[in-house]
């Protein structure tokens, strides 16, 4: 029952990377690497804090187009080398109070990777989805979406 509930408030992605687990782990956990891939393309990400240990905090900041900051931050609650990272996470001003689990599994020279975002409640997950967690804020503005599409075409 509890597992059932967990599934309903979890977003999960699975991948198999064609790279050895040592490299995957390094790219995922070392701040100089994180700075290269965490942010959207073309955004400058600053690693403010990256204390990679249980109880350690991390905080990444990037500027938004309006000059304010988009902040990703959290605290590691579990780290098992080359296996598992669990951390709390906030993505302000969008998502707060989620838990992120990254699981790594060696498979020869490849790595199975499972990434989960666990929301505090099913309701919050749904709300995030509606707000555009999956589809962008555009889904909340139907007509406006069309308007933007026309606008983007014009500006190309």
């Amino acid at each position, binding site marked *: 029952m509890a597992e059932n509930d967990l599934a309903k408030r979890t*977003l999960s*992605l699975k*991948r198999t*990377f*064609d*790279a050895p687990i040592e*490299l*995957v782990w*390094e*790219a*995922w956990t070392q701040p100089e*690497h994180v700075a*290269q*891939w*965490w942010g*959207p*393309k073309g955004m400058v990400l600053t690693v403010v804090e990256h204390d990679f240990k249980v109880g350690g905090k991390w905080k990444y900041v990037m500027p*938004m*187009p*309006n*000059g*304010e900051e988009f902040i990703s931050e959290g605290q590691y609650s579990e780290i098992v080398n080359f296996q598992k990272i669990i951390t709390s996470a906030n993505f302000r*001003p*969008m998502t707060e109070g989620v838990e992120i689990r990254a699981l790594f599994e060696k498979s020869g020279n490849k790595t199975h*990777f499972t*990434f989960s*975002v666990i929301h505090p409640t099913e309701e919050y997950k749904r709300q995030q989805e509606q707000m*555009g*967690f*999956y*589809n*962008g*804020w*555009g889904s*909340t*503005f*139907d*007509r*406006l979406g069309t*308007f*933007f599409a026309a*606008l*983007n075409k014009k*500006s190309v």
Partner: protein
Amino acid sequence: METRRDVFQAIADPTRREIIDLLAQRPMNLNAIAANFDITRPAISNHIKILNECGIIAIEQVGRERVCKIRPDHLKQVSDWIGIYEDLWVRKIDSFEKYLYQLKSKQKKHGRK
């Protein structure tokens, strides 16, 4: 406290989002906008004022009427952000994967295993 006036403030309120949505169709005067809502005219008027201050809409005096219209240049900031929020996690993992492979080929080049 300093009041925030930007596109994100503008779209934070559901009524304002609806107003933006309406004005994306065509310019409207205050009465025409208010006719779409159950809330009071002063309340609508206040939302219009905020949207104007946020740079989302412009108010033009046409004869005796004040006509509100969208300012697409500012609204485009939101559009750009929609792209960023879109498929947030999928993009992040894609981005990670891409970087990982770059790293892998770089290490190969340098003879590191």
